[in-house]
């Protein structure tokens, strides 16, 4: 059923999307600020379920690409995202019936709504990651072997590029990344278009609603001064893994990605127990007392113990007090093909995937 989102829903979406970002995806504060101003100007956005799409409907997937740090100087601009969508429409010679999110985790969980506000298109309550991941082939639609092209990329100064055809998702990632770099390492993109049938089969459904529910739970707990982490676990079938404080952060970049390790020291009932998390933009593998206990595609969420809000890998620092929880991933990523795309080996860890939820 098509429903209008309130600004309060979008405030909750920002908090929930940042938590589903699992350490990456960029803090959604600036997209949220755009939405506040768009709502003040009278714009409204609507959410629909994937089963409302006709099989031959055409859906545009909206995402920002680039380094989150660049986005802190060249601020997210809603009209530029809308231009990425209209460029794709011109390229295809056909109008979209709806938009959707590539990545619910982080800033990209809100960007489709920024474009939708200008284009008067509904947004489908589905995405292709159910979280945040660093690369284009780490999506449910790539696992489903759907087409990895065309991709449109625009820059606020008027540049327009389309990656028309590439042999694989990996190549789409490489070529699009090059264009993005030339733009100044930030681009508004429209990802390969999807039919209604494709979205219904390969989309990860209900993720915007899920992010809003998580965010609403955290915000209510903050207002009532109750435990925000318990509030998340009351609306999501997650698992509390650890409470502690950051005692060391080691970072390095390789091939344009931020990789590293965070070490924690236990607090409260976890006193005396050590925890480490390895990350590549997102949290990838968590180990307790040197034993891997949680790994991708399970969602590893590091939360500020007091506010319940997400802590990102780019900003986590010595001394922060955090709680680590896990949330279950989409089943699409649990198949052998899914694990090839996003399991621990896809990130260079020689581990057999074992879910914290299978025990």
């Amino acid at each position, binding site marked *: 059923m098509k429903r209008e989102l309130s600004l309060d829903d979008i405030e909750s979406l920002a908090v929930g999307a940042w938590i589903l970002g699992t350490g990456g995806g960029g803090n959604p504060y600036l997209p949220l600020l755009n939405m506040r101003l768009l709502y003040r100007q009278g714009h409204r956005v609507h959410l629909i379920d994937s089963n409302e799409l006709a099989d031959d409907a055409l859906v545009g997937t909206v995402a920002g690409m680039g380094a989150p*740090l660049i986005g802190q100087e*060249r*601020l997210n601009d809603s009209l530029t995202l809308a231009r990425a969508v209209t460029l794709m429409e011109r390229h295809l010679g056909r109008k979209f019936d709806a938009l959707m999110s590539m990545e619910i985790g982080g800033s990209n969980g809100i960007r489709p709504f920024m474009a939708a506000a200008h284009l008067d298109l509904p947004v489908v309550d589905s995405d292709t990651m159910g979280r945040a991941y*660093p690369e284009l082939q780490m999506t449910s639609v790539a696992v489903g072997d759907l087409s990895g092209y065309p991709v449109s990329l625009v820059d606020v*100064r008027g540049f327009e590029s389309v990656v028309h055809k590439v042999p694989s998702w990996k190549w789409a990632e490489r070529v699009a990344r090059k264009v993005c770099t030339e733009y100044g390492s930030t681009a508004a993109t429209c990802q390969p278009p999807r039919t209604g049938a494709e979205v219904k089969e390969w989309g990860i459904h209900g993720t915007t609603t899920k992010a809003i529910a998580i965010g609403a739970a955290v915000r209510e707990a903050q207002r009532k001064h109750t435990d925000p982490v318990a509030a998340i676990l009351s609306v999501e079938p997650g698992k509390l893994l650890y409470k502690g404080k950051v005692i060391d952060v080691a970072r390095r*970049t390789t091939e344009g990605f931020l990789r590293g390790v965070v070490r924690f020291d236990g607090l409260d009932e976890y006193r005396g127990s050590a925890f480490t998390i390895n990350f590549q933009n997102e949290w990838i593998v968590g180990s307790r007392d040197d034993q891997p206990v949680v790994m991708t595609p399970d969602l590893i969420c590091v939360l500020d113990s007091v506010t319940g809000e997400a802590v990102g890998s780019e900003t986590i620092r010595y001394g922060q007090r955090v709680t680590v929880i896990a949330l279950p991933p989409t089943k699409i990523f649990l198949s052998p093909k899914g694990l090839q795309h996003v399991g621990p080996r896809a990130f260079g860890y020689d581990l057999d995937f074992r879910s914290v939820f299978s025990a």
Partner: protein
Amino acid sequence: MRRIGIDVGGTNTDAVLIEEGNVVRAVKAPTSEDVTTGILDSLKSLGSTGVLQGKKIDGVMIGTTHFINAVVQRRSLTKVAALRLGMPASASLPPFCDWPEDLAALVRGGVWMVEGGHEYDGRLFMPLDEAAVTKAAGEMKAAGLKSVGISAIFSPLDPGHERRAAELVSKIIPDAVITCSSDLGRIGLLERENAGLLNAALADLARDTIAAFEKAIADSGIAAPLFITQNDGTVAEAAQARRLPVYSFASGATNSMRGAAYLSGLSDAMVIDVGGTTTDVGQLKHGFPREANSVVKVGGVRTLFRMPDLLSIGLGGGSHVQLDPLKVGPVSVGYRLLKEGIAFGGRQLTTTDIAVAAGVLELGDRKKVAHLDAATCKKVFAEAARMAEEAIDRMKTEAGDVPLIAVGGGAFLIPEKLPGVSKVIHVEHGDCANAVGAAIAQVSGECDQIFKDLSRAEALSAAQGIANDRAVAAGAARASLATIESEDMPLAYLPGNSVRVRVRVVGDVAAG
């Protein structure tokens, strides 16, 4: 070296004289409504002890909450013209877009956005549209605006466009007071711009306040330059503080931690500052407070100021005590302690009454608290210690036992032994630690910038050079400079070998 440190607190204005590293005298005067009377009173009170007789004072260092209070209370603010160089980017998020509406209505004199700015690697984002800047300046002049905040995309990397725009605006408005966001450092356009706009809004107040401080010093008969303490525990010369008042927003807690370091001789320790109502717990690293890593809101405006990471709990010398069931704080009698505490003839049982009954403090009338037996006092002290222990444990970042310095007027609540603490250090003049921190403050310089295709060592050394130059420009003696923070952060999704480096150095105030 002979300096006077002054801390203007909510209740008292403390002044200390430090001579060759020793606290010679500490005095207190009530804080006055206009702030400067309290400062003059404390200086007179210090002078009346005779310690200043015939001596040359090298500097008076004042820590004040005057500027932050103006923002929080929405008073004495100047209307500001905001000029952003970065079009066509960021157009949907104009200056003031995330300010609370009441504050924006007071400060927003007009918004102009023109083409300009740089990329992260120093390339031009857009050439500066000089004609548009000149046109904007004409409109500012017509609107009667004299205080201008200029921001540009990636200006911490290349401040060229902001500086050129400032020149152009000055040609049209010769008496304009201009804040360039690059003077306030740090990557994050909106937050840096916000800091610049707040700074521009304080232009008139800063000029008047600094002049009043200088007059108070002159009126007290002291001939010494004025320094204002900053958020990070260092000082700025009066001229710089007048130009960048936002850097002096929140110096109280920082001064107190720096004072604790100085009085104890320790540079790495936990500090617990027990006041009348609250207790702040923080950690000293290399003699400076560890900084908070979150975005700091001032009067509802997001900024990227350097503020110490503190945990505050409701425990202090004026905390209400309830005996059955036992509860200490968070409510406090605050500055009414000398009226409302039982030992002073009042009716509210406080932690100070317990200390008087136990013979720990000699204040008020001990007979009035004679009904409190030793066992009761012990129970209350144990509860206060438990609260302190929990706060310390939350702030500790290492597993082993660490030394703890206890300062502030309520430091008597901290016992000599605490779990997780190797030793508790009570220092002489600990109740004036904040004024001591002001008196001993140094000068700092910072660099926060992206370096490309340099080795890690080269990037760190380049950043260090920039930070050193900035510290010297701010009044530090070059030979005394030392690096107190150095952080490098490889950047995701950027080509080549891009690394963001932040270096902070401090040094002694240069003589003369």
